[in-house]
C-alpha cells in the first residue's frame, strides 16, 4: 500500500495597505542617515498594519487569495497551522478564530505555534508529519506577523527593518512515487542561550505589564525602547547567523546527498541585505542562485520565505521542477532548513 507524501502546492501572500518609506523616517528623524541605512539593509518600504489590523486579518486575506487562485476550497482544508508571535489574543488560539472566519469545516484540526523567522520551515515539517501519518490531506499553513506593534516608535534600529505581512501555503497529500521526495529532508536547531538577544521582556506571565515596564530607556545609540517593546542586539544576531547558517546549509546538503550545485535556488529568511550578502559570500553561492526579496516589504519574520518564494515564482526566477533550499533562522535562537521540489 502506498504512503501519502507531502507536496507544497501553492503560496499566496498579503501585505497591509499602509506603506512606510525612507522619506517617512527622514521626517521623523531628520538627523538619521536613512539612505545609507537603506543601502545596507536593502529595504526601501515596509507595510505596516493599521491599528486593530491583526495577524489573523493578514492571514485571512492571504488564505482568501489562495482559495481564489483555485488551489483548493475552504471545505477541502482539514488542518490549519498558524505560525505567529503576534497573536490576536493570549487565548483563544488564533487558528481557531480563523477556522470560523474562513469557512473551514469544524472537522478540521487547528493550532498556533510560536516561532519567528524559522517558522515557515518548521510549519512545513509539521505539515509533512500530519500528512504522512495519515491525519490530514490538505493543510493550510499560515505565517503571519505584525512586529510593528512590538516596536517602540523611537527605536530606529528596528523600525528600518521590520514590516508586517502574512502568507498562506497549501500542503497536500500526494502519492509517494518511490522517487525523490518533493519535500524534505529537514535539519533543525535550537539554542536558547540566544533568547536574550531578540526579546520582548514584558507582557507575558514572567513579567506582566506594569508602570515600570512602560518606562522608556535610551540606549547608547539614541534608540528608545521599553520592556514592552522589541529589543534586538543586532551584532549578536549577526554573529549567531554567520556562525550557524552556513553550517545548517552544509548539514542539509549532507543529509540529502546533494551538492550545492544541484540546488537551483536558495531562498533564505530575509532579515536584511547586509546579512544575506555576508551569508552568501561565506557560502560562495552566485547571486543569481541566492534569492533576495526585501525592498518592498522588509523583514516580515515568519512570512519572509513564502513571500520570497511567491515573488521568485512571479518574476520567473523559480520554475516548475526546480530544487529549492529554504533556510530559516532567528528568534529563539531557532533555525531549520529543508528542500522543496517546486510543483
Amino acid at each position, binding site marked *: 500500500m502506498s504512503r501519502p507524501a507531502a507536496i507544497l502546492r501553492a503560496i499566496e501572500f498579503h501585505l497591509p495597505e499602509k506603506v512606510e518609506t525612507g522619506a517617512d523616517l527622514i521626517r521623523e528623524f531628520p538627523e538619521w542617515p536613512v539612505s545609507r541605512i537603506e543601502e*545596507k539593509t536593502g529595504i526601501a518600504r515596509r507595510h505596516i498594519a493599521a491599528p486593530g489590523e491583526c495577524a489573523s486579518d493578514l492571514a485571512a486575506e492571504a488564505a482568501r487569495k489562495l482559495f481564489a487562485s483555485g488551489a483548493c476550497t475552504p471545505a477541502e482544508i482539514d488542518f490549519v497551522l498558524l505560525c505567529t508571535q503576534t497573536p490576536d489574543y493570549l487565548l483563544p488560539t488564533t487558528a481557531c478564530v480563523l477556522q470560523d472566519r474562513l469557512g473551514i469545516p469544524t472537522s478540521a484540526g487547528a493550532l498556533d505555534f510560536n516561532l519567528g523567522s524559522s517558522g515557515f520551515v518548521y510549519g512545513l515539517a509539521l505539515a509533512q508529519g500530519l500528512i504522512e501519518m495519515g491525519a490530514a490531506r490538505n493543510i493550510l499553513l499560515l505565517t503571519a506577523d505584525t512586529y510593528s506593534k512590538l516596536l517602540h516608535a523611537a527605536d530606529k534600529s528596528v523600525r528600518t527593518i521590520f514590516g508586517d505581512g502574512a502568507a498562506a501555503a497549501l500542503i497536500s497529500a500526494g502519492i509517494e512515487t518511490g522517487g525523490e521526495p518533493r519535500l524534505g529532508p529537514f535539519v533543525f536547531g535550537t539554542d536558547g542561550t540566544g533568547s536574550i538577544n531578540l526579546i520582548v521582556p514584558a507582557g507575558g506571565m514572567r513579567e506582566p505589564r506594569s508602570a515600570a515596564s512602560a518606562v522608556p530607556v535610551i540606549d547608547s545609540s539614541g534608540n528608545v525602547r521599553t520592556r514592552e517593546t522589541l529589543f534586538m542586539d543586532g*551584532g*549578536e544576531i549577526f*554573529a549567531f547567523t*554567520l*556562525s550557524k547558517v552556513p553550517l545548517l546549509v*552544509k548539514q542539509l546538503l549532507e543529509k540529502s546527498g546533494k551538492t550545492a550545485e544541484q540546488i537551483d535556488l536558495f531562498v533564505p529568511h530575509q532579515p536584511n541585505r547586509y546579512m544575506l550578502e555576508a551569508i552568501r559570500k*561565506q*557560502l560562495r553561492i552566485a547571486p543569481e542562485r541566492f534569492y533576495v526579496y526585501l525592498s518592498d516589504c522588509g523583514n516580515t519574520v515568519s512570512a519572509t520565505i513564502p513571500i520570497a518564494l511567491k515573488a521568485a515564482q512571479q518574476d520567473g526566477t523559480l520554475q516548475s521542477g526546480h530544487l529549492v533550499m529554504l533556510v530559516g533562522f532567528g528568534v529563539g535562537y531557532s533555525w531549520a532548513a529543508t528542500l522543496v521540489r517546486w510543483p
Partner: protein
Amino acid sequence: MFKSGRIFMDRKELLHQFETLLERPAGSLNGSEALETLEQWDSMSTMGFIAMVAEHGVTLSPRQFVNCRTVDDLLNLTGIPKS
C-alpha cells in the same frame, strides 16, 4: 563551496582589510590606535568586521569586543599572530 578551515592571512593583510572596512587610506593604521578614537568604528562596521573574519573561517561575537581597547586587541581575537 565551503571553506574547510582558516585560510592563511597574515597580520599585515588583516590590518589592511580593517583599513578598507573603515574606509581609511592604506597604511593609515599601525594597530596601536585606540578604537574609541576611530570615528568609523560603529555598530555597522562591527558587523562588517564579524563578516570579514567569518570569510576567513573565524567566528567572533560582539561581546568579545568589549574589552578591546586598541586595533591590535581587536585583531588579536582572530588568532592571527602579530609578526
